[in-house]
């Protein structure tokens, strides 16, 4: 429910409609190398599946309609908004979330660069920024600042003003090129 229903009649109709659809489907999703099999209601978003069923709360929900980018994950290597996918659509897919970036306790170079360059303040957008930047650097290992700004323009940050995030990604690119 992203909009308030405007009348009680339509609210009741909505309620009875969704109540009648409460069936489940068995899905298997590989997340960060672990296979999760679960019975899942078709209405559950991939984001809620990751957060509630898999317990991976690093994938953050900021708007639930694909604008803020905080829930960005990689599905079979490409970035996707976990709030805009249903979990059942991910059946059989291989997913990477922010929890899959670090090797054990060792942050990866992109995460290190965000920490070192003050690329986060409240940090709520950070997982989405990291996943978007992961794809960006995979596609373009040596971007310039304008390309990074363009690449991150689908992710909202309310704290930093983006500059430190751009510098983090540029620093990470340099570290990853060695």
């Amino acid at each position, binding site marked *: 429910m992203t909009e308030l229903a405007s009348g009680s009649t339509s*609210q009741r109709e909505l*309620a009875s409609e969704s109540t009648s659809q409460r069936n489940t489907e068995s899905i298997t999703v590989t997340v960060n190398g672990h296979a999760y099999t679960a019975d899942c209601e078709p209405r559950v978003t991939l984001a809620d599946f990751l957060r509630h069923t898999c317990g991976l709360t690093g994938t953050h929900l900021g708007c639930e309609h694909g604008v803020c980018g905080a829930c960005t994950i990689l599905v079979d290597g490409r970035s996707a908004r976990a709030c805009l996918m249903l979990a059942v659509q991910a059946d059989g897919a291989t997913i990477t979330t922010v929890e899959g970036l670090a090797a054990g306790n060792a942050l990866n170079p992109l995460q290190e660069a965000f920490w070192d360059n003050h690329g986060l303040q409240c940090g*709520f957008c950070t997982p989405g920024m990291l996943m978007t930047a992961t794809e960006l650097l995979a596609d373009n290992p040596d971007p310039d600042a304008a390309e990074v700004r363009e690449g*991150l323009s689908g992710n909202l940050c*309310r*704290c930093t003003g983006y500059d430190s995030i751009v510098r983090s990604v540029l620093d990470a690119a340099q570290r990853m090129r060695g």
Partner: protein
Amino acid sequence: MSVIGERVPRSDGRAKASGEAEYGVDHAEPDMIWGALVRSPVSSGRITRLDTAPALAMPGVHAVVTAADAPDTRAGWVLRDQRLFAADRVLYEGQPVAAVAADTLELAREAAAAVVLEIEPLPAVVDLDAALRPDAPLVHPDWESYVPALGPDADYPRHGNLAAESVSDPPGVDDAFARAHRVVTDEFVVQRQYQAYIEPKSAVGIYRDGRFTVHTAHQFPYNVRDRVSQFLDVRPSAVRIVGHTIGGGFGAKLDAALEPYAALLSKAARGRAVKLVNTRTEDLITCPSREGAITRVRSALDEDGTIIARELEVIADNGAYSGEMPWLASIALHCARGVYRAGPTRVTARLVYTNTAPTGAFRGVNGTYLYHAVERHMDHIAAELGVDRREYRLRHLFDDGEELLNGQVLTDAGILREGFEAIEAAAPWAKLEAERRPYRGIGIAAAWWLTNPMPGTAVVKLHEDGTAAVITAATDNGSGAVSMGVTQIVAERLGIPPSDVFVTLPDTDVAGFDAGSQGSRTTRIVGKASQIAADEVITKLKDVAAGLLEAAADDLEVADGTVRVKGAPGTSVPIAVVAATATNTVGPIQGTGSFVTPFPDFNPGCATGLMLPSFPTPTYHVHLAEVEVDPVTGTVQVLRYLVAQEVGAVISPDGTYGQVMGGVTQGIGYALHESLRIGEDGRYRERTLESYRLPLAGDVPRVEFFPLEHPDPDGPHGAKGVGEGPILLPAAVIANAVSDAIGRPLNNIPITPEEVLAALQTAELRNDEEHVR
């Protein structure tokens, strides 16, 4: 080696970069169930039917509560004007009417939708001027019966739809206008601004053992405690607030939101933990956004163009309930002249009840639009006089010793001139003017501001391994004030690395009162309290080490992880050894510190309704922007942005710059992007982050920042507030720059592409007419 002024990794950086950080919205409890609110779909009306039976009959629904289930009382930060649930009338769209708890979030939302709510719509009070007319319907017919939170003696001027009023009417204003050579008049209108933190509000309530515990990501846990206590009619100590990592707040998470509902639902669900999470639309339409306002200002000028008197009237939108707003209304007195001499000044600030969501604090509060008004007005005056805008400002600029309208004396206002000079060195005004191209413009503005003085406290506890814990209810809303600032200050004092200092998350059962992350106060107030606490730890360390080192305590110092004899660093003992020894001899070592900044002297007779009487720990700000307007699309690109800001002393360079860059970006959003319109029906037109457009990575340049450091003797290492100042001036300088670029005044905020195009068309029409003539 000192860690003050050095780059240090923020203590929460690993958890935030790895996805491990537990935000409020991530918190879960064993056996937890979910809640949802039934909210009014209209902004004004009478409830004619409320039937919860269909929801209660649904399997998996544990509780449905309405006004009938809540204590018959009113609550509020400043004025107790708000019920937990609308009982008879609804006063704004989104106002809670009922709440449900059920097994899952989806089910809770279904059950909320199943509650039958019928409302007979009533006319909505929306227009600010109309709300003040004698025949306007009253938003609160019972306004007279409301009592201030601090008791009847704390009441203040208010009447009907006038939620608060502050008036300063010094002698000489009318005389000056009567003899004025010229009078310049302006009106400015600004929309609301939504804080739009990326983490929506949430709360987990638990009723257990006769007490309420609420988990929440909040800027001001003690304020939540007090509000839950008021709404649920229990004493404050019967409420425990546990803080979690905050996904942004910017002032919107200073007052309670979902917390009292989660607490009451848990009680109704026999103690099961209940979690509530806002959808983004719920969050947006009920958030205490920065208020919309109308500011009318006129200045009297003598034959030299010098300002000899001013009149400023601001009418601000309180929304349906008062929240913190009455306390902020009198800030108009402190900003009415900006930072420029303007002679005797009459200031009237009116706060108006409307049938809209209650407004509240957003970083920089009303300073943003008051400075927008004053600085646009300065440009207008300079244009009327045909003089240079910067030069005109310098002519009137405050100097050391300026006495303000409230009698407060600014001993160090000369810092403003340093700010202008710092900007001038990087972006010479005459050069910018000379290199002007079509559709490019520049703007400059200046401000002063306070550092919130409210109290804070901390306990510094020394572990037996030589590390330290800081127990405080202070919160890090992302700024780094705790994860760097307070951490650095304690590390510096104890001579240990910042990585050996752990600051707890807030818990009102554990840590003493703290006034929250607001008004740029945390590094200064909590930093100072922690420093005092650390000093007590040092005294105790020295006393114990004196025995170990066979030296007098006065001859010892604490440095480099040791307690050592001054001048003989070889004679030392590790802090860990001293701490362990202390635990087994005199008892564990810890220290306590508290701090509050007193309000500067002021003249209490200068105004009525003076709720915020003076500005403690002043800071000074000068901004300059260069913009380019696209005449085809009406969009504005900010090409350059410069900030010179007095900060006292830089504790953390990353944190300081982060606040400047982030605050300016929010200000650019306010100036250009973030349209938040209210219809005649009192409902918001923008309702999601798709239509409420935040600045994106491509919309903002890197801010050129020039810190001015004049250490404050009372601040830890000289620190003053940093976080709020950067948002005070972007609307002012960008509006001035855009107006300069197109040669037409733009006096409303935000300056949307539509407004720019309309202004350009007006200008073209005028040019055509002149051409024909």
